[in-house]
């Protein structure tokens, strides 16, 4: 099912959680809403689910207005951050809940319920836990129960709120792959909320980067990493080295010195030159746009980082640059920093 979000605005008292947000989600896609806390991503998910209503805007499922339908009628599977399992029910009954509450013509015979629940439990690989109670399960197992329960109503939209937030790193990685696999097996459109960029980039077909109630960028994981649309996205996703600069008629300057870098169409004014650490080469100071003294060198695992102090109008600026392992670098030497790929944004 395709989901259209059109011009949605949501305020909580004076706080604007969503500011005129529009988003198209294609049928069968797995989309991640990625952003820091307070960016409005969970609010957007809840509005799509029907757990919250927007102050303005529209939500459409397959072109049909979804806002006049309650969460009960939208047929969406929702997986809560803290699972929200029913403590007093066994795993089996938790999963069966969505089938047991059906009424009238939709009511299923007991045998059909048992068959469906058993099928779901094997799908999420916890059929051996059917008689346990939620309190007797590990975090990862609870997550699987929550997912099986949400899938029991055969939803065409699956919404997951920080599904791996409460799990330890190893389980999280394992479940992530498994969820991706599951999404491919089912005829379902999935929307996932996360603040973990690694999770979003690894799992999603498309990533929606959100900041302060607005969508900053929508694109494939490669798009948002390699070609960030805004300085916010560049800062938020991956590591970023930020150089100062000044744009003047299509060129970049530091003070009066031309940097020899392209302003990328930025109008005159102060600029931020953003680059990934691995795109910044440590080079000859005379032939580099930026030069400075090495203050410290640190090595951890495969990474080496150098603090380089460069001159700036507002006082010296310390930049953490990546150093190739085979390059020797002594504290106190003067080095040049040469960004090969970079993006220029207004400061």
């Amino acid at each position, binding site marked *: 099912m395709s989901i259209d979000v059109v011009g949605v605005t949501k305020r909580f008292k004076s706080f604007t959680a969503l500011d005129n947000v529009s988003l198209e989600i294609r049928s069968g896609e797995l989309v991640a809403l990625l952003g820091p806390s307070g960016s409005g991503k969970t609010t957007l998910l809840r509005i799509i*689910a*029907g*757990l919250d209503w927007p102050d303005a805007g529209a939500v459409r499922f397959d072109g049909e207005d979804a806002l006049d339908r*309650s*969460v*009960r009628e939208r*047929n*969406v*599977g*929702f997986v*809560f951050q*803290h699972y*929200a399992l*029913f*403590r*007093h*029910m066994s795993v089996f009954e938790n999963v069966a*809940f*969505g089938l*047991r*509450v*059906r*009424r009238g013509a939709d009511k299923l015979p007991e045998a059909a319920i048992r068959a469906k629940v058993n099928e779901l439990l094997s799908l999420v690989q916890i059929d051996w836990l059917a008689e*346990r*109670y*939620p*309190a*007797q399960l590990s975090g990862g197992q609870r997550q699987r129960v929550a997912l099986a*329960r*949400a899938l*029991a*109503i055969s939803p065409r939209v699956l919404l997951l709120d920080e599904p791996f937030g409460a799990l330890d790193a190893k389980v999280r990685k394992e479940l992530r792959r498994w969820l991706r696999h599951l999404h491919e097996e089912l005829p379902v459109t999935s929307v996932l909320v996360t603040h973990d960029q690694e999770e979003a980039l690894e799992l999603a077909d498309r990533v929606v980067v959100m900041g302060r109630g607005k969508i900053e960028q929508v694109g494939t994981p490669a798009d948002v990493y390699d070609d960030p649309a805004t300085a916010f996205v560049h800062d938020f996703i991956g590591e970023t080295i930020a150089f100062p600069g000044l744009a003047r008629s299509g060129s970049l300057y530091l003070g009066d010195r031309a940097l020899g870098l392209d302003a990328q169409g930025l109008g005159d004014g102060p600029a931020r030159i953003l680059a990934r650490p691995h795109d910044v080469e440590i080079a000859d100071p005379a032939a580099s746009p930026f030069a400075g003294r090495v203050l410290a060198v640190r090595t951890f695992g495969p990474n080496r980082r150098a603090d380089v102090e460069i001159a700036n109008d507002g006082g010296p600026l310390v930049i953490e640059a990546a150093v190739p392992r085979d390059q020797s670098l002594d504290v106190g030497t003067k080095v040049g920093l040469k960004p090969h790929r970079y993006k220029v944004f207004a400061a």
Partner: protein
Amino acid sequence: MTASRLTLRHPSVIPGFGLTLGLTLTWLSLIVLLPLSALFIKTSEISFARFLTIVTSERTLHALQISFGLSLAAAAVNVVFGAIVVWVLVRYDFPLKRVVDALIDIPFALPTAVAGIALTALYAENGWIGSLLAPLGIQVSFTPLGILVALIFIGLPFVVRTVQPVLADLDAELEEAAASLGAVRSQTIWRVIVPSVWPALLTGFALAFARAVGEYGSVIFIAGNLPGISEIAPLLIVIRLEEFRYADATAIAVVMLLASFALLLVINRLQRWSELRGGKAS
């Protein structure tokens, strides 16, 4: 061989097991067991045949029936309406909510005689409420119905105060989850909320019941105290004491004690069972 020694003590990092258990037992003996055993000793002054005659006399049986029957009924009523009060207090915001919340505790603090007199005045045939009920042929004061009203009054805070924190802790996400799975409101209430607060409701029921069985002050004013109609067991005990028939009084007390203990034990087991099902203990 220390391993085979019979011991109550399991190795534990929490110190002071011996000391605290000793204190607990001494304290319980002094405060609870000693007065109770005096009750049994006093009762043993009379023969078993005499004991049976006393406790199976029509007046005693009726008083016990009134006491236990109405206490159970009052506790049941309190569970239903107490749950509704809790729901309103926990889920909604309204003006003077704090005041309403404080009002709940009044039956705790009010001298029960005052409550009894106030209720009698209200429900008497010429009272505010009694005068409205009288044309319908309903008499409250000086009937078992009056006893029920008094027992409901004193039992309400027990249900409210036990269930309130549990419902407040209940995650609103549970209700959202139920709704997203297609449950209508009534299904959410009966299948999700009530089972979640069920152990607390049972505890509230047990406390309200225990309080009602032992209640004396408020009931004697409103009951009318007609033997065989509206006489409660605690009053019968006091009557026997005033007649200096101490053994008779303690005999009735022993029956009350054993019956209460048995009922509370059953409720306790029920509660433990429902908690186990809820997976609280594993």
